[in-house]
């Protein structure tokens, strides 16, 4: 069973789903569009073979992701539910550019 967009909206109102901030224009027929926050984490191996994390703030002019590099980002929205299991999906418009929004761990269990 998948919730329709209307039902997601109802359950946000009921307090059974948290989406904050909640913008009704982000509701789709059967999902809610999340947006990219301004920070990225880049996992790198330094010259001594040690894993380091570089934090990058996305500038107004945008940030170019390099091919084959893994980046961690996060949503602007706080999303969760004690009642429903969530599944995180990329937007088809982003998938059409070969950008994996979630290479692993797509299920969040409440």
């Amino acid at each position, binding site marked *: 069973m998948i919730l329709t967009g209307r039902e997601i909206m109802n359950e946000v109102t009921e307090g059974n789903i948290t989406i904050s901030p909640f913008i009704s224009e982000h509701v789709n027929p059967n999902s809610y569009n999340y947006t990219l926050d301004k920070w990225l984490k880049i996992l790198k191996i330094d010259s001594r073979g040690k894993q380091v994390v570089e934090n990058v703030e996305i500038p107004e002019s945008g940030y170019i992701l390099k091919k084959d590099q893994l980046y961690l980002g996060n949503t602007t929205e706080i999303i969760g539910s004690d009642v429903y299991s969530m599944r995180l999906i990329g937007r088809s418009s982003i998938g059409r550019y070969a950008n*994996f929004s979630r290479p692993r761990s797509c299920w969040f269990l409440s």
Partner: protein
Amino acid sequence: MILTGMKIAEEVSNNKITIDPFNKEQVTTNTYDLTLNESLLEYTEDIIDTKKENPYVYHKIPENGFMLKKGQFILGCSNEIIGSDFYEPLIHAKSGIARLGLFVHVTADLIDIGFKERTTFQLYATQNVKLYKNQKIGQVSFWQPQGEINLYAGKYMGADLPTASKVHKDFEK
């Protein structure tokens, strides 16, 4: 709740699911097999700017196949027009295709309820893979929705070829 193959076939007869052309042999236990159309779309710029419309070219898969190179990304589409006003479709690879290291979608497998078109595949090869037109490449499952339905009327309506990203339209709002 996910529909069984038998239920998918039944709902196609009841006109509650669109699969066109529909071929009984493509019904699996709980999905319907999708075949690859001959048209492919490839972006031509090295850097993709998500704020802009990016140029692309169309290719046709020749009889002797199309080689998708390791790390190459291309859009394809199904021969079948699929969709439903009553169920939510999800796209998956055929396991035989996934076992070759070929992705048929990149992160976006959910189709909006009400969207009825040839579905675009986001083909990404982790090794050199040769593709042939009309081969079985993906599968679609149908899920029962919960709640009142608002049908899709978005920016990809009317697709009958692989359709390039229209994410730049999000910035125009």
